[in-house]
């Protein structure tokens, strides 16, 4: 049954992803790319269990490396996106 639920979740998320992303205007495509990239670092959640579990040395080493790599992706991705978006400004006081 798990498989059934997971495939439901998969399919719904894919459709939802398409609907959401299609609405993003061209202006924001670069930040979208880097923001989505940051989200793909979610694999960090999976890595945590490997790095902190009571597995073999290999498991822990792999897990720790995975944590490090995924964290770079997450932290770097969100920060760089934020830096980009901070620059987007609307015309306000100027006129």
């Amino acid at each position, binding site marked *: 049954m798990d498989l059934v639920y997971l495939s439901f979740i998969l399919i719904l998320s894919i459709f939802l992803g398409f609907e959401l992303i299609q609405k993003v205007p061209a202006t*924001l495509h670069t930040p979208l790319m880097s923001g989505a990239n940051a989200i793909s670092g979610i694999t960090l959640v999976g890595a945590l269990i490997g*790095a902190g579990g009571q597995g073999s040395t290999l*498991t822990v080493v*792999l897990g720790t490396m995975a944590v490090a*790599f995924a964290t770079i992706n997450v932290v770097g991705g969100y920060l760089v996106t934020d830096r980009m978006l901070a620059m987007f*400004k609307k015309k306000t006081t100027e006129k």
Partner: protein
Amino acid sequence: MSTTMLINLSYTVAAVLFIFGLKYLGSPATARRGNAISALGMLLAVVVTLLDQAIIDYRWILLGVLIGTAVGAFAARLVAMTAMPEMVALFNGFGGIASLMVGWVALAQPRLSSFILLTIFLSILIGGVTFTGSLVAWGKLSEKLPGRPILFHGQRLVNGALLLANFACGAMFVLHPEQHLWLYLAVALSSILGVMTVIPIGGADMPVIISLLNSYSGLAACAAGFAINNNILIVAGSLVGASGIILTNIMCKAMNRTLGNVLFSGFGAVDEAGGKIEGEVTALSAEDAYYVLEAAQSVVVIPGYGMAVAQAQHVVKELQQILEKNGCEVIYAIHPVAGRMPGHMNVLLAEADVPYDLLLEMDDINPRMEAFDVAIVIGANDVVNPAARETPGSPIYGMPIINADYARTVFVLKRSMASGFAGLDNPLFYRKNARMIFGDAKETLGRLVREFSN
């Protein structure tokens, strides 16, 4: 409530935060908040995961997180806005290898059904391809590797064989999980596959590849999610997968090419670009251009890749303000694939504090183009090439462009008569109303600004 329950309900909340984050990313006014919301979702997902009873030792986690945070924060702080594509590529590769490793670690789980083994193999395959592919893309973009397509005889055959080998290895892996050979082979083969698929692609096509690889890294996370039975990996991974595919598609459409063409053709710069172009090229000095601009009532600025190369965005903004003070209306016309990333120009102009409501999209500006006194084309070429509209034989025929040639006068700021990304001659330069102002865009604009202040 059990811990598992708590964790999973928090994952639901995290998923909602990701969804809202992407929703808010849909408008410039809320995009920054959207990114923060999405980051919050990530934080929540990570923090509650730490409560998992399977985690007994936090030292290694701490180590990994510290290293990752330091490197990530450092890189994000230091990267130049123009180096954004290669930075995204690199981060993306890291996400890929992390998924590969998560898949690998998942092998240590007690009960492994064939389905789980399959998803483990998929996270290794997709993760590995994402990793090495992204590294090659990064190398090409940062010019650490040669940017030109690396082609050799029988390349497709080799790649086809490689793909088959990967699948065969996957089958063996699922059937004989106890033999580690297949695992190692899967890691090796997927890494090689990533390299081999990206090297035949030219440096300029890298943005498409990066977007595609971004989609892959989402799918890798998805596969890892199935392998360790984790909802949030599946939800977040699919969202990323969808995003990458949509952006890839947008880029391909705007270049008037198929994804297959991008992936497999090493972009043959088309020489048979139908017929010689009639007309003469008229050059103009920045000084003479000044007089025209001085008298102009309305100006549209059309930036392209050359503006990014010249780093001219700040001086563009200066010119805009001077023109506005002079009583002239200035707006920007942005082509969706001007530059080398979708939305590239928007980011650069945002960096120079140009308010985004001055930036018009192609469809909004084209109907009004006739009304403008001057169109200033700054380092753009393909995106204003009228051949796309007029010359059925041209390889870019049918690609939507900004009709700069419809403005009363067109200034083209570039260094030479050289062609742009698509390697095509541009009939615009030969039009009666076009004036070429040769030179580096930043310098030319600087000279114009100085003329005004004198």
